[in-house]
């Protein structure tokens, strides 16, 4: 059977940084991604990132993907398996995967799971109509494949994804009729909110969608105001003519592979759903299995990159590689604390307190 020192599942920001960090310490790494190229969801992020220089602040996500890719490409210790879906991790640690069209198996000393997250659904009438799309899906269609989804969009969710994708829709020439959110406040960064407001897009907080209109595909939406308990307020219905309804109502960590390893998970709504317990090195309760990025908790890509680095360093360290890793790791742990030290990071930090092991 094939064997690797560190198997990393998921080639997004967390997985790429994990691979670079571990290989730079001398470990042999196999990096799996089901896509045709590395980068995960960075490849559609056309906006500049926040954070500090260490997390490539001020650089667009698409360009960060290129920077990380180039580093991986020149590192001979990293074996990249694209178009490869990891199907299962068995109780004896065997990883089974489909590479192209062939089924293979591999064992590893350490495994880092950085499988990302999936977009959440929202309950409303006709939410299965074609034209009700995830905001990330629309971003993929536009920014990766160069096709606009429609002419006029209703965005549900005023978090960062809803605000950013609305802005990017406008950049691609698509009208955004409104951004609505059931919460009384904008959830995303207010600078993003101001950006879309300047373009004339209204943000309707304390509003929700009641129904999508249309027979075969979306032709409109009925929205209404909600009170502070999220109950619809009578006689506030409003019909909007749109052909796309975008859902930006949060992400769920992809935990299937993690749970196959038998690690303990907990339901923490502020982190996106079921997330694994982990120690300060991001090792789960399954010995040798680490987690990083949105699979660990739904957060920004900047923190996913730092987490990936910490997980990669920890796995390499556990295999006996590197010198002075403890000090290097402390630096990154400190970076992560700093990223989470503001008001926005409070939610993440309080969630993480429930997960230490």
């Amino acid at each position, binding site marked *: 059977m094939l064997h690797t020192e560190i198997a990393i599942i998921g080639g997004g920001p967390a997985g790429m940084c994990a691979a670079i960090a571990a290989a730079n310490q001398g470990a042999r790494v196999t990096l799996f991604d089901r896509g045709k190229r590395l980068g995960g969801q960075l490849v559609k992020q056309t906006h500049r990132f926040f954070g500090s220089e260490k997390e490539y602040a001020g650089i667009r996500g698409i360009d960060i993907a290129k920077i990380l890719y180039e580093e991986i490409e020149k590192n001979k210790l990293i074996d990249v398996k694209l178009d490869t879906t990891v199907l299962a991790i068995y109780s004896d640690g065997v990883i089974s995967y489909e590479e192209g069209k062939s089924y293979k198996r591999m064992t590893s000393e350490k495994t880092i799971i950085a499988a990302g997250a999936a977009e959440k659904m929202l309950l409303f009438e006709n939410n299965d109509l074609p*034209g009700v799309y995830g905001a990330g899906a629309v971003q*993929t269609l536009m920014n990766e494949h160069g096709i606009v989804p429609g002419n006029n969009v209703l965005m549900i969710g005023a978090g960062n994804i809803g605000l950013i994708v609305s802005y990017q829709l406008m950049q691609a020439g698509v009208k955004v009729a409104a951004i609505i959110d059931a919460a009384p406040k904008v959830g995303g960064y207010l600078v993003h909110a101001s950006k879309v407001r300047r373009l004339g897009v209204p943000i309707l907080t304390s509003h929700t969608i009641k129904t999508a209109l249309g027979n075969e595909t979306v032709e409109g939406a009925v929205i209404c105001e909600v009170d502070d308990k999220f109950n619809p307020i009578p006689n506030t219905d409003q019909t909007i003519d749109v052909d796309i309804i975008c859902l930006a109502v949060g992400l769920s960590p992809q935990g299937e592979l993690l749970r196959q390893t038998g690690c303990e998970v907990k339901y923490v709504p502020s982190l996106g759903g079921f997330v694994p317990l982990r120690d300060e090195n991001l090792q789960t309760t399954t010995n040798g299995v680490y987690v990083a990025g949105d699979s660990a908790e739904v957060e920004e890509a900047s923190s996913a990159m730092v987490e990936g680095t910490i997980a990669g360093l920890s796995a390499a360290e556990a295999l006996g590689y590197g010198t002075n890793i403890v000090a290097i790791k402390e630096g990154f742990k400190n970076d992560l604390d700093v990223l989470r030290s503001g008001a926005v990071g409070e939610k993440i930090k309080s969630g993480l307190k429930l997960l230490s092991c």
Partner: protein
Amino acid sequence: MRIKKHPVLSSIVEKTEVEFIFEGKMLKGYEGEPIAAALHENGVRVLRHDHRPRGFFCAIGNCSSCLMEVNGEPNVRVCVEELRDGMVINMQEGKGKLKGGEE
């Protein structure tokens, strides 16, 4: 509709146009782009029926909302399956039918 000019994405990669058949109709798309993208460009948003019309949702191969029949094979996630010249693509009804499988 294809984006012709974009304020950030400046690099336009040369793409090869190919023909494919959707529900008996000849349509055009770019080789290697996801089938769902090519269908959107042709104004097709209903990809299958499961009692009700269904389209895609996640576009990255997570959710299985976009399962179609491609070259006779059912349950293909067309949001990630790449378009090739001459593909025959049909809307899927329900769970779809395997070639030579039970009715």
